[in-house]
């Protein structure tokens, strides 16, 4: 079957990586794939036809233009199934197929801001596409808006690589041998709230924070580290293709996000047996259990975050216990399971479409 993926960007986010995994999985199952997205580095990795889309960036009046581009993509590459990602692309896809025969389509919801779920549910109802939640958190958030997803297919990750060479990292970042390493992975945007982790780190003199990822907030985050007087203990490492190895080599992973869908970094830390300290926000609190698989702290409180980080860095028994229980959780979130879940759903939707619904 010919599958068109419609996603806003092809940069480095988690949703994008899910799409890449799905595209690969679909292709090895014998399907043809293409992508409609704003151009980005992941496009080349796919090796599939890419049709450019404009960037919405919370400007809904660009939806018709996006729809037009999707329509052109469908004209140039007639897909039998369209898989779009997040409510904005669902609106565009629905609009693009408003006339004539509509190919079967679905939308995956990877998480939106808490205050946006109401609008998201409305957009999804009007778009009329079956929706899939990327995790329990998203499913619950939509259910609170009286919107039922057709399925929840949790994000998954490939098996963990062996941990990276810590000594080498220490050398690269200039860490003293006894210095502890805390890793934070995510685009440098407001959602990921790296500033909170920087503020917390100011209270833990023996630790260094490695911030992996790139984004528009880099300069202001660097300033924050400077103002907190810990510029020497915060490393902005940019986008790293060995992020999983670094996670494996770290002493802790911190996830200070304001909201999440089902963050891949949490799954990666669980699979790498690296203890997690995270904010108890939507998406994380459904995945992680406080004091069993991670330490959860209330969002926005740097002192409590620092205290929790200190505990996992200092109490080896606790860290070991969290890692052990976390590994069992991670076993359920495999990429293989996610890809198979979606491929089954694709076939189901295609059969439904053939029956003329």
């Amino acid at each position, binding site marked *: 079957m010919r599958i068109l993926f419609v996603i806003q960007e092809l940069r480095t986010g988690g949703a994008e990586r899910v799409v890449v995994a799905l595209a690969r999985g679909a292709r090895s199952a014998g399907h043809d794939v293409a992508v409609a997205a704003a151009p980005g580095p992941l496009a080349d990795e796919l090796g599939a036809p890419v049709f450019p889309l404009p960037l919405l960036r919370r400007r809904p009046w660009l939806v018709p233009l996006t729809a037009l581009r999707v329509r052109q993509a469908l004209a140039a590459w007639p897909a039998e199934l369209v898989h779009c990602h997040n409510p904005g692309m669902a609106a565009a896809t629905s609009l693009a197929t*408003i006339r004539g025969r509509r190919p079967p389509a679905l939308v995956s919801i990877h998480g939106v801001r808490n205050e946006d779920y109401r609008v998201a549910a*409305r*957009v999804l109802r*009007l778009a*009329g596409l079956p929706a899939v939640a990327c995790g329990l958190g998203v499913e619950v958030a939509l259910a609170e*808006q009286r*919107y039922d997803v057709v399925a929840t297919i949790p994000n998954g990750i490939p098996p963990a690589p062996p941990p990276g060479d810590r000594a080498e990292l220490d050398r690269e970042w200039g860490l003293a041998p006894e210095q502890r390493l805390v890793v934070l992975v995510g685009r440098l945007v407001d959602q990921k709230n790296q500033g909170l982790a920087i503020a917390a780190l100011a209270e833990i003199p023996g630790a260094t924070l490695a911030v992996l990822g790139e984004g528009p907030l880099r300069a202001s985050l660097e300033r924050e580290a400077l103002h907190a007087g810990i510029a020497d203990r915060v490393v902005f490492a940019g986008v790293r293709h060995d992020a999983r190895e670094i996670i494996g080599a770290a002493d802790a992973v911190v996830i200070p996000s304001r909201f999440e869908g089902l963050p891949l970094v949490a799954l990666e830390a669980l699979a790498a047996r690296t203890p997690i300290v995270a904010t108890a926000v939507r998406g994380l609190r459904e995945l992680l259990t406080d004091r069993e698989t991670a330490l959860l702290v209330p969002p926005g409180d740097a002192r409590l975050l620092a205290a929790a980080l200190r505990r996992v860095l200092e109490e080896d028994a606790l860290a070991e216990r969290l890692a052990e229980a976390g590994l069992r959780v991670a076993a359920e979130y495999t990429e293989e399971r996610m890809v198979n879940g979606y491929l089954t759903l694709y076939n189901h939707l295609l059969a439904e479409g053939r029956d003329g619904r």
Partner: protein
Amino acid sequence: MLCASEAVAAGFRERGVEAVAVPLRHKLDLAGAARVWRHLEADVVHTHDRRTGLLVRPQGRARAAHVVHTLHGLPEEIALRVGRDDRPLPPGVSRARLTWLLQGYLRIESILGRLGTIVVPSEAMRRFLVQHGFAPRRIHVIPSGVSILPAKTRPAREPVVAAIAANLEYWKGIDVLLEACAHVRHPVRLEIFGDGSQRASLEWRAKELRIDAAFHGFVNDLRRRLNDVDMFVLPSRAENFPIAILEAMASGLPVVATRVGGVPELVADGETGLLVDPDDPRQLAAAIDRLAAHPEVRRALGERGLRKAAERFDPEQIAGRMVELYERLHASR
């Protein structure tokens, strides 16, 4: 109940239905629509006219309600084409208007229809909509209902009185009826209820043809007046699902009508009335003559029509079907 005028709202309140008057002044009255939207926290939102279908239906769906829209009728210009797509352009209708209705209006309706369920009164309309790209599974046929009045015996008399209740417009084919009456051999008197742009020319034509016809204009007590006539005629060129025929049947009258739109679903030819082709005065005259000459045929057709109205178009039963649809939608969440 959200409705356009305080008078209608009061009528509903008298019957114990919570009602608010929130008028929509035109099809783009967004301010009015915003006032309606405040009331939309419902499980089912049922819209009944084009304005609410356009302005209220999407918001209802967005706010998690199941939306049902009743298409009570099609614009006459395209109703004329229900089941007869090859019809020539009717007089006074531009090619542009017809194109807009078929390519624009119907397309917008079909897109809006994807938001929920559409109810139409007749199978003919359902077929027409499916032909024009509406999803068959979204369309439900639920006819209108009519309450039965105690039947009156109508003594044979001369002249026989035939009634018609219609807007006096081209679509209703009253000009054809006048021509037909000029051919009718049996003495027949025409009682014409309703008003419209063609009234003056029709009155003039009736005089010219020396037909015994009375133009009454709009009347409020049509049901009572139908007790004093012997047959009901509706010579329309286009119809959706004429309530006038339902009311005539419910009053025990035999019906002479044209084979257009949903009319054959109401009138069984030779059973509850006689069906003729539209725009054919001779056929119409023959049918009227047949009923005028045979009081016993009139009685038999009228009685069967009454029975059919009671069995198939009982308001309670029709309302029950609508409620059943609401419940099924609500359960399907």
